[in-house]
C-alpha cells in the first residue's frame, strides 16, 4: 500500500492522536492497568497497525478511541484527540455522533457480530439511518456491492446464517464503511477466516479505504500481516507501546528486545525448518528411540491408503444426504519425521486426525500403523495401540480436565495402562515435566492457574507419558500467541530429535508447516491436492491452490535481512 493517493506537501494534522493514554479496569481483584503511557498517531488516509499478543492492550486502546470500553474500564490518564477533539472528555451524545460518520469499526468475529434475526440489508440500512444517510434499497445494495459482495441487491434480503464467514466479514466491512468515516478501526478483521479469504478481504479493504481516503487503525497479532498492510506499526506488550515506526524499518531493524523476538518467531516470516532431524544428518535406527523393541521395521510408521469418510447429514424427515469429508486420501508418515496435513476450514483435515487416532471409523480405505490396519483392531489391540499413538489438541484451555491437577492429568495415562507403582509413576511425571521445561511446583496446580503456553506444555507431557511412537498434533499451536507458539514448536522439534518421535501435524497455517514439517500434504475439500517434501512444495508448488495458499501467507512477499528470516 503506497501513499500516492494523498501527497502531503506540509505536515498534515494527525487524524487520531493518542497521547500518554492509560486505561484501567476495576475488577474483583482490584484495579488492573490494561494500558499505560500509550502514544499513537494516525494521519489522514494512513494505515497504522497495532501488533501485540493477547492481553497486550491493543484492542482496549482501539476501543477507547471509539468510546466503547466495557463498563468497568475507564481512561485514567492521557488524551485521545480525534481531529483535535478530546474523545475522553466528550459527552456521550457527541461520541454517538462521531461513531459511524467519523469513526467506523469492523469487529473481530464475523460469526457473532451480525444479529441473526435480521436480514443483512436491514442491518446496513439501520447504520445508514442512524447516521442520517439516504437509506433506500438502492443505497443498501450500493454499500454492500462496494464491499465486494456479488449480487448485492438479492444478498441484502438474506439472513446472516446464509452467508459464509468471508461474506459476513464483507457485510461488516460494508457496515463499517457505509457512512464514509474518516477513520476505520479494524479489530483483527480476518483472524477468524481462512488465509485465502483473509487475503481477498484485506486486499479489498485496502483498495476501498485508499479510494475513499479513509485512515485505518488495524489491530492484529500477526507482525507479517501488519508489515504488509500498514505504513506504520505500533508494537504493544503488556499494556505499553514498546516500539513504533515505519513498518519495514521495524521489521528489518527491530531495536526493542520484545520486537526482536517477535520478528524472529513470527512464523509468517520464518523460512526454514526448526532443527530438522534430516538436516542434522542423524541416522535414526529402525524403530527408533525408546521403542526399539516394538517397531516392526516398516519405514513408514503410518500409511494411509485410499481413506474415505462419508458423513450422512440429515436433510428433512428420514432422508439423508451424503457428505464426503475425506475423499480417497493417501499419504504416509516416515518414521522419525513430521508430516503436515494442511488445509482450510472444512477441508476434512481434522476428520483425518480423528480417524488416525481411531476415534472415528473410516467409510473405506485403510490406515496402517506399523504395518497393521488400525481400523480392524480388537478391544485389546486397540488399547495397546492407544499407548503408541497420542494426540495433542488445539485448545490448551479445553484439553485439560479442570477438575484434575497437573500431576493427575499427566499421571492418568500411566494409571489407565497400569504402568509402574505409585512411586514410579510420580518419578515419571517429574521426568516428563523436566522434558517440557516446567518446574515441578506445577504438579499441584490446576489448569486454570496456568498460562496458555504452560497448559500446552502439560498437554505435551501427557501425550508423551506413555512413550508413544507417533504424536498427532491437531492444530496444536494455532490458539497460542506467536512467541509461545515458537516455544512449543521448538519443544516439539527437540523432543523429536531426542525421542525419535513421528508427528502427524494437522494445521491450517502453512507458515507453521515450513517450520516443523518434513513432508506436506495439502488438502482441499476432502481431496489431496498436492504432496511432497516441504522444500519442494514451498519452492515449486505444482497446483494453483497450493500457490494461492502460499501467496496468502501474510508478509510472504516482504524482503528481510537473512538474520531475521
Amino acid at each position, binding site marked *: 500500500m503506497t501513499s500516492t493517493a494523498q501527497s502531503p506537501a506540509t505536515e498534515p494534522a494527525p487524524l487520531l492522536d493518542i497521547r500518554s493514554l492509560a486505561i484501567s479496569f476495576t475488577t474483583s481483584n482490584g484495579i488492573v492497568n490494561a494500558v499505560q503511557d500509550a502514544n499513537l498517531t494516525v494521519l489522514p488516509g494512513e494505515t497504522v497497525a497495532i501488533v501485540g499478543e493477547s492481553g497486550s492492550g491493543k484492542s482496549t486502546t482501539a476501543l477507547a478511541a471509539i468510546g466503547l470500553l466495557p463498563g468497568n474500564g475507564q481512561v485514567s490518564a492521557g488524551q485521545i484527540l480525534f481531529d483535535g477533539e478530546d474523545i475522553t472528555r466528550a459527552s456521550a451524545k457527541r461520541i454517538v455522533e462521531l461513531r459511524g460518520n467519523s469513526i467506523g469499526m469492523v469487529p473481530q468475529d464475523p460469526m457473532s457480530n451480525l444479529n441473526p434475526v435480521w436480514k443483512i440489508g436491514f442491518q446496513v440500512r439501520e447504520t445508514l439511518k442512524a447516521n442520517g444517510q439516504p437509506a433506500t434499497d438502492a443505497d443498501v445494495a450500493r454499500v454492500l456491492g462496494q464491499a465486494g459482495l456479488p449480487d448485492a441487491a438479492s444478498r441484502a434480503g438474506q439472513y446472516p446464517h446464509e452467508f459464509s464467514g468471508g461474506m459476513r466479514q464483507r457485510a461488516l466491512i460494508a457496515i463499517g464503511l457505509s457512512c464514509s468515516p474518516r477513520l476505520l478501526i479494524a479489530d483483527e478483521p480476518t483472524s477468524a477466516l481462512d488465509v485465502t479469504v483473509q487475503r481477498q478481504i484485506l486486499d479489498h479493504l485496502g483498495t476501498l479505504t485508499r479510494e475513499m481516503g479513509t485512515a485505518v487503525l488495524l489491530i492484529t497479532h500477526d507482525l507479517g500481516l501488519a508489515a504488509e498492510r500498514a505504513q506504520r506499526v505500533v508494537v504493544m506488550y503488556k499494556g505499553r507501546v514498546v516500539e513504533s515506526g515505519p513498518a519495514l524499518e521495524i521489521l528489518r531493524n527491530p*531495536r526493542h528486545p520484545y520486537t526482536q523476538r517477535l520478528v524472529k518467531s513470527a512464523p509468517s516470516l520464518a523460512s526454514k525448518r526448526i532443527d530438522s532431524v534430516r538436516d542434522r544428518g542423524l541416522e535414526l535406527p529402525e524403530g527408533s528411540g525408546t521403542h526399539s523393541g516394538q517397531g516392526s521395521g516398516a519405514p513408514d510408521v503410518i500409511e494411509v491408503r485410499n481413506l474415505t469418510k462419508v458423513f450422512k447429514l440429515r436433510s428433512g424427515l428420514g432422508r439423508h444426504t451424503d457428505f464426503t469429508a475425506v475423499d480417497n486420501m493417501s499419504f504416509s508418515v516416515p518414521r522419525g519425521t513430521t508430516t503436515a496435513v494442511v488445509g482450510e476450514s472444512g477441508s476434512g483435515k481434522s476428520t483425518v486426525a480423528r480417524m488416525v487416532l481411531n*476415534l472415528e471409523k473410516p467409510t473405506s480405505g485403510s490406515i496402517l500403523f506399523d504395518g497393521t490396519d488400525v481400523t480392524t483392531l480388537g478391544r485389546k489391540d486397540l488399547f495397546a495401540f*492407544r499407548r503408541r499413538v497420542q494426540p495433542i489438541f488445539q485448545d490448551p484451555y479445553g484439553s485439560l480436565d479442570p477438575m484434575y491437577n497437573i500431576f493427575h492429568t499427566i499421571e492418568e495415562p500411566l494409571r*489407565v495402562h497400569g504402568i509402574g507403582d505409585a512411586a514410579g509413576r510420580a518419578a515419571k511425571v517429574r521426568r516428563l515435566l523436566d522434558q517440557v521445561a516446567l518446574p515441578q511446583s506445577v504438579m499441584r496446580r490446576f489448569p486454570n492457574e496456568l498460562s496458555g503456553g504452560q497448559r500446552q506444555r502439560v498437554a505435551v507431557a*501427557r501425550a508423551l507419558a506413555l512413550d508413544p511412537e507417533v504424536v498427532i498434533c491437531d492444530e496444536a499451536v494455532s490458539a497460542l500467541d506467536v512467541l509461545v507458539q515458537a516455544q512449543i514448536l521448538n519443544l516439539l522439534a527437540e523432543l523429536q530429535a531426542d525421542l525419535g518421535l513421528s508427528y502427524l501435524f494437522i494445521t491450517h497455517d502453512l507458515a507453521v508447516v515450513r517450520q516443523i514439517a518434513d513432508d506436506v500434504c495439502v488438502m482441499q475439500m476432502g481431496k489431496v491436492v498436492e504432496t511432497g517434501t516441504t522444500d519442494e512444495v514451498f519452492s515449486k508448488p505444482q497446483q494453483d491452490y497450493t500457490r494461492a495458499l502460499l501467496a496468502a501467507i501474510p508478509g510472504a512477499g516482504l524482503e528481510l535481512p537473512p538474520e531475521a528470516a
Partner: protein
Amino acid sequence: MSKSSRTQEHFVAPVDSDVLPETDAVQDGQAPLSMWGEAWRNLRRRPLFIISALLILLIIAVAAFPQLFTQTPPDGACYLADSNAGPRPGHPLGFTLQGCDVYARLIYGTRASVLVGIITTACVVLLGGTLGALAGYYGGWLDAVIARLGDIFFALPLILGAIIVMQLPMFRENRNIWTVVLTLVVFGWPQIARITRGAVISVRNADFVVASRALGVSRFQALVKHVLPNALAPVIVTATISLGTFIVAEATLSFLGIGLPPDIMSWGNDISAAQTSLRANPAALLWPAGALSVTVLSFIMLGDAVRDALDPKARKL
C-alpha cells in the same frame, strides 16, 4: 512512502530488566486451588452463605438431637386443661388445642420434615442424575426414551400426582416417611434429570474427554471420571434449592391429610391440626409455619450462594 520526520520517527521504549521472561513464570504464591477450592474461598466471604449455612446447621442439630433443645416430652404430656393456653415459663410458645406444648412439638417435628427433604433429594439426585447423565452422554434412542419419560412425569403437577398416588390402597394403608419420599421421588426426578442431561451434553465433547478416550480410557470410565465431575455444579445448585421445595411438598401433603400419618410429628401435621383453632389460637399455626418458611428459605439461599460461587462466568480463567 516517506512522510514527515515527526510521525515517521522510530520510537523504542526503554527496556525494563524484568520485561521479557523466556517462558511464563509459574505462580508460586498461594496454595493450589481446585475449582471447588476456589468456590469455597468465594463462598466463605458471602453473607448470604454464612447466614444460610448457620441456620441449616442449627436445623440439622435440632433434627438430630431434639432432646437438647427441650425438656418437655412432645407426646403423652398433653393435658386438656392447657388447651389453647398462652405461653408460660417452661412453655415459651403456648399450647395447642389438645393441650400439647407447641415448642416441644416444633422441635420434635423438625426431624420428619428434614429427613423427608434430605432423603428425597438424595434419591432424586441418584435416580434423576443417573438417568440424565446416561441420556445426555450416550444420546440416541436412550436419550429419546428417557427424555420423553421425564416429560410425562414433568407434565403432572407434583401435588396433584402425589394426592392420587397417596390415595392408592397400598400407600393409604401403610403411610410413613418412606411412602412420602417415594411419591416425591417419582414426581421429582425429571427436573434433576434434565439439568444433568444438559450439563453432560455441554461437557461430553470437550477436548479433555476426547483426549482421555485417546489415552485408552473406556467410554463409561470417561463419563464417570471426566464428564460427571465437570457437570456436577448445576446439579448441586438445583438439588439444594429443591430440597426446600420437597420439605414444603411434605408439609402440604401432611396438611391435606395424605402425607405423614398423624402419629409422626411433623410441621405439616401441626399446621393441619392448628387450622381448626386458627381464630382462638393463631400461634399454634404460625410457629410451625414460620419454622417451615425459615428452613426452606435457608436451603434456597444456600443454593443461590452456591450457584454464584460456581458460576463459570465469575471464575477467572
